[in-house]
C-alpha cells in the first residue's frame, strides 16, 4: 500500500507538469504576439529609406517561426523583451515626404505654392514610448540642412503631437487636407510657402525635446530635399483682329484676347476691349487725359469696385449682389447702362468710349450714379 501511495503522488505531479506545459503552449516565458527585432541604428540625416523592422511572429503553437510581416500595427498588448536586447523605446522618422494641397507627393514646388509635410513615425524599440507630458511632440522645419539640436522648435510653427507609441507602432501623418491623421498637427498650422527659387532641405524631428526616454536618439530625424521654381509668366497672345488699335470705339469683336475675356453678355461679343489694347497703364493714361483731376479716384476707387479685375467686359444683371435697377444690365468698367439715362449712359461700348461716357455723365450729373463712389456723394 505504501509503495502504491507514492506511485499515486508521482502520477499526480507528472500530470500537473504535463498540464502546465500544454497551457503555456509549450514555451514558458513567451506568449502569443508580435515581436519586433531591434533595428540597426542609423543616423537619419540623409534621405535614404529606413530598413523596415524585422518582426518575429510567435504563434500559439509550440512552433516558433521568424518571418517578415506587414508593417506592425499599434497594440496595447504588453510585449515581453527578447533576451539580449537593450530595454527602451526607440522612435524613428520612418519616412518623410512633401505634398501639395491635394496630397500629391512632390519635390518641386512653384514660388508661393503651399507645401505640406507627410511624415511616418515608427517605434522600433522594445518598450512603449510614454511622455511625462502626455504627448510626444515632433517638429517640421522648412529648411534645416544640419542636424537639429534637441529642443529646437520649428521655424515655421509646424508641430505634430501624438500620445503614446506602443512597441511597433507605425503611423503616417499628412498635413494636407486629405490627411491621413491631419488632426495631430497643432494650431491649425499645416503648410509653408517659399517665395524665392532654390533648393531647400526640409527636416522632420520626432520627440524633438527628448521628453520620452529613448535607447537611441540618433535616428529621430529625417530630411527631404525640394526645389522651388518660378513658373513662367503668362504672355499675352497677339490679337488676330484687324481694326486699328487706338480707335475710340471699335466695333465689338469675337476676340477673347487670349482667353482674357469671357463673352458672357447679351451681345455674346467682346465689346469692352475688341482690339485687345487695354492695359491698366493705358487706362490710367486715358483717365488722366479725360479727367485729370479725378483720374486717381476713378482708377483706385471706382473701377476696381464696380468692375472687379479691371475687366472692360464686365456685364452684370442679377447675381450675389441682387439685380440691376436697369433691366438692360450694367456694362463695362463703369457699370453703365444702354441709354436709359441718356446718350452717355452707355457701358456697352469699347473701353475708351466707356471712359468718355462715364466722365461726361459724371460732369453732367454727379457721382451718385455709382455705388462705389459713395465717398463723393
Amino acid at each position, binding site marked *: 500500500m505504501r509503495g502504491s501511495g507514492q506511485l499515486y503522488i508521482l502520477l499526480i505531479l507528472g500530470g500537473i507538469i504535463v498540464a502546465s506545459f500544454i497551457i503555456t503552449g509549450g514555451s514558458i516565458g513567451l506568449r502569443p504576439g508580435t515581436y519586433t527585432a531591434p533595428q540597426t541604428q542609423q543616423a537619419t540625416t540623409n534621405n535614404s529609406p529606413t530598413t523596415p523592422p524585422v518582426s518575429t511572429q510567435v504563434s500559439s503553437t509550440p512552433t516558433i517561426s521568424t518571418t517578415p510581416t506587414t508593417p506592425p500595427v499599434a497594440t496595447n498588448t504588453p510585449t515581453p523583451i527578447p533576451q539580449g536586447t537593450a530595454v527602451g523605446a526607440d522612435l524613428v522618422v520612418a519616412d518623410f515626404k512633401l505634398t501639395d494641397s491635394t496630397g500629391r507627393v512632390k519635390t518641386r514646388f512653384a514660388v508661393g505654392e503651399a507645401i505640406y509635410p507627410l511624415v511616418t513615425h515608427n517605434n522600433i524599440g522594445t518598450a512603449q514610448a510614454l511622455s511625462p507630458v502626455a504627448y510626444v511632440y515632433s517638429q517640421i522645419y522648412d529648411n534645416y540642412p544640419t542636424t537639429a539640436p534637441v529642443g529646437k522648435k520649428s521655424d515655421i510653427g509646424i508641430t505634430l503631437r501624438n500620445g503614446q507609441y506602443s512597441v511597433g507602432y507605425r503611423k503616417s501623418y499628412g498635413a494636407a487636407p486629405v490627411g491621413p491623421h491631419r488632426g495631430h498637427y497643432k494650431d491649425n498650422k499645416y503648410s509653408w510657402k517659399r517665395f524665392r527659387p532654390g533648393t531647400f532641405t526640409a527636416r522632420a524631428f520626432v520627440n524633438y525635446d527628448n521628453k520620452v526616454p529613448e535607447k537611441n536618439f540618433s535616428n529621430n530625424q529625417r530630411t527631404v530635399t525640394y526645389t522651388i521654381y518660378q513658373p513662367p*509668366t503668362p504672355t499675352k497672345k497677339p490679337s488676330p483682329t484687324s481694326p486699328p488699335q487706338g480707335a475710340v470705339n471699335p466695333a465689338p469683336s469675337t476676340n477673347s484676347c487670349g482667353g482674357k475675356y469671357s463673352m458672357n453678355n447679351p451681345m455674346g461679343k467682346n465689346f469692352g476691349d475688341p482690339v485687345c489694347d487695354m492695359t491698366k497703364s493705358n487706362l490710367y493714361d486715358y483717365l488722366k487725359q479725360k479727367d485729370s483731376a479725378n483720374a486717381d479716384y476713378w482708377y483706385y476707387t471706382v473701377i476696381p469696385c464696380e468692375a472687379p479685375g479691371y475687366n472692360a467686359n464686365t456685364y452684370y444683371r442679377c447675381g450675389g449682389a441682387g439685380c440691376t435697377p436697369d433691366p438692360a444690365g450694367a456694362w463695362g468698367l463703369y457699370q453703365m447702362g444702354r441709354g436709359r439715362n441718356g446718350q452717355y449712359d452707355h457701358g456697352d461700348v469699347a473701353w475708351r468710349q466707356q471712359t468718355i461716357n462715364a466722365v461726361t455723365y459724371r460732369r453732367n450729373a454727379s457721382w451718385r450714379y455709382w455705388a462705389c463712389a459713395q465717398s463723393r456723394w
Partner: protein
Amino acid sequence: MDEVIQNQKPQSRLPVKNIAFLTACGLLLAVILFIILIRLLPGTTGGEVAQSTPPVQYDVKRQEQLLSIVSDREVLNEEDTLIRSQIKQGVDPENEIVIDLPTVTIEYVASPDVFQGAIKTTEVNEAKEDAVAWFEEQGISREGICKLPLFFYLTAEAAENLSKTKIIFDPLPTQC
C-alpha cells in the same frame, strides 16, 4: 334760435382745427417718408439710376488712405529703391505681370507707377500675406512695402465668390 346757434358753433369750429392739424401731420409724415425713401435708395436722385450694387463692398477709409498714399508718395530708402527698380525691369508692359503666385498675381503698372495685387482667392488675408512675403523675399523692407506703393483688388471670380459674404474689402496691405 339762440340756443340752437350756440349749440352749433362749437360743433363747426372743432372739425376745422382737426383738419388743419391732420394736414400738418400728413405733410410732416410725407416729408419723413420722402427722406427715408431717399436714404433707402442710394444713388436715386434726380432721375439717376445706380446700375448695380457692387459684388463686394470696399473699406471707404482705406480707399481714401490709398488715394493719399499714391498722391503723396513717401521716398523709399536706397536699398528698397534699388530692388524696386530691379523688379520693374523684368516686367513685360503688355501683361504687366511681375509674378503669378497661386493666390495673388502681382503686377507693375507703369503709368501710375504702382504695384497691384490681383487677389484670386476668397482667402484675402492669406493672399495679401503671400504678396508681402514675396516682396520681403526680394529684399524690400516691411516699411518699404507700403511705400512701393502696393494695393490689392479682387479678380472677377474672387469678387463673385465673395459676393454672398459680408466682407468689407481693404485694398491695402494689412501693415500699411
